[in-house]
């Protein structure tokens, strides 16, 4: 061997994505959504004009949106929204802790997986509203009943995300860990868990969707007198035939759910992009 082998680097790297400025990007992101909203409003207005249902049960978009405008100025609305959001965060956080722990245990311990692995998938298919009669028997018409069902709705998805994330870690990565001398703890901390992260985040996204649905079902069934919530507001609006309030509240519920889902999706996307798993799609 001689020193003449020190040849210069002639390789070309893979092309690196260039940032094209955020303004056109934002516009590309906004316009399809704006168009979709306009379409929905147009169809809604057409149905309203067709006179399919009387205006007092099926209000126009304008009436609904103006009711939404009035509603957001009331203290009662914000207190209802606060209750709902706090319940959602609390329930989801608890489901996150429980689901993650169960997921890691089931992925790690083979007998446990044989015992409850398929049960977790089964629980995912169980409509969470079916838990409410039992929850109400166990906890009464109380916060705990709602929390119980929200956790049961979200935790299986989160646990499943952990399990399939860990299962799908490429064997080459764990072999690498062993070659590098990683012990069991380091193997998990430095290789397995980071490798499982994207699947875990999809589990969280799905878990959130289930938590939000369970919560709404719960708030319709378990109405606590002195505690306004978005679900309770829906129920009262129906009872008192306040159609614009009902629809405005539904819009709020839809928007809240979409905003949180969007946060999860964008976290998942940036995670995948950093790993080169997704080249460019948004």
């Amino acid at each position, binding site marked *: *061997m*001689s*020193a*003449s*082998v*020190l*040849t210069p*680097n*002639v*390789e*070309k*790297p*893979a092309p*690196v994505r260039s940032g094209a400025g955020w303004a056109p990007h934002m516009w590309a992101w906004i316009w399809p959504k704006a168009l979709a909203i306009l379409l929905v409003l147009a169809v809604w207005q057409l149905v309203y004009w067709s006179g399919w249902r009387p205006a007092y049960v099926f209000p126009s978009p304008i009436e609904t949106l103006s009711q939404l405008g009035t509603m957001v100025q009331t203290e009662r609305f914000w207190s209802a929204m606060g209750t709902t959001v706090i319940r959602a965060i609390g329930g989801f956080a608890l489901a996150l802790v429980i689901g993650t722990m169960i997921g890691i245990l089931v992925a790690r311990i083979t007998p446990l997986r044989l015992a409850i692995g398929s049960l977790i998938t089964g629980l995912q298919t169980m409509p969470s509203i079916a838990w409410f009669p039992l929850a109400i028997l166990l906890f009464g018409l109380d916060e705990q009943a709602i929390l119980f069902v929200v956790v049961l709705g979200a935790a299986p998805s989160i646990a499943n995300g952990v399990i399939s994330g860990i299962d799908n870690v490429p064997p*080459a*990565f764990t*072999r*690498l*860990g*062993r*070659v*590098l*001398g*990683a012990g069991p703890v*380091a193997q998990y901390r*430095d*290789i397995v868990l*980071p*490798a499982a*992260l994207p699947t875990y985040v999809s589990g969280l996204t799905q878990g959130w969707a289930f938590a939000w649905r369970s919560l709404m079902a719960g708030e319709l069934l378990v109405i606590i007198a002195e505690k306004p919530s978005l679900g309770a507001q829906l129920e009262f609006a129906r009872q008192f035939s306040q159609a614009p309030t009902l629809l405005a509240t539904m819009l709020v519920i839809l928007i809240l759910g979409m905003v949180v889902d969007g946060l999860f999706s964008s976290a998942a996307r940036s995670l995948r992009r*950093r*790993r*080169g*798993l997704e080249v460019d799609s948004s």
Partner: protein
Amino acid sequence: MSAQALEVVADGTALQARGLRKVFGSGDDATVALDGVDLDIRAGEFVTVVGASGCGKSTLLNIFAGLDAPTSGTVWTATKPALMFQDATLLPWLTAQRNVELALKLRGVPRAQRAERARQLLDVVRLTGWEDKRPHELSGGMRQRVSLARCLAQDTSIVLMDEPLGALDAMTRDHLHDEIESVVQEQNLTVVFVTHNMREAVRLGDRVILMGSRPGRIVYETVIDLPHPRLMDSTGVAERAADLTTRLKAGKAYLEGADS
């Protein structure tokens, strides 16, 4: 490596294998992947192992690396070897720098020294300026160079290479031959390089070992005394490669004749 006591190993030996046998499965499904493999590798030697796919050459490296235990036989290595994988196997969530640092971290290098040491190692493989790129932003050849730097981070004198250049285009591969050769010389490494490309084996090896299939075993070995620097396409390399290919085929034909 293996804890079993072996006969006293002569000075200057980096790796010794005696009577290696590896059987996968059991009963009627049992496959003998390796049988009767004896091998002595001197410190500083560059040994290439050639054979058709399925001849057990990767199994042999896995046993040397401690990833797999032999069914019978013993392996002794002077230090725990590093392993360079076929597809680089960089962790996609870490930058080039962090991939190298992970190897340092896992062998207990204090945090304060890791960044500087990883930068030095990436400089050894001429990747200064690419430290903060993630694997998907690097070319195939660059990924293998990060992988080589990571092997060096394991602070071992023995590096096992499992067809590390198999997936690269010819130009990048030739370039990396020079690169690997110079790094191996600078760092005074002992290398066991597995490949299915006979010319590559002759191009790189101080010694070439031919492996036959079913069961995987050593059928022939020879010292390559061609002068350096060598080129894959030079007549010297091509002639030796052609000669060895004939011998490998003969070894295989002999075995298939014995089977029937």
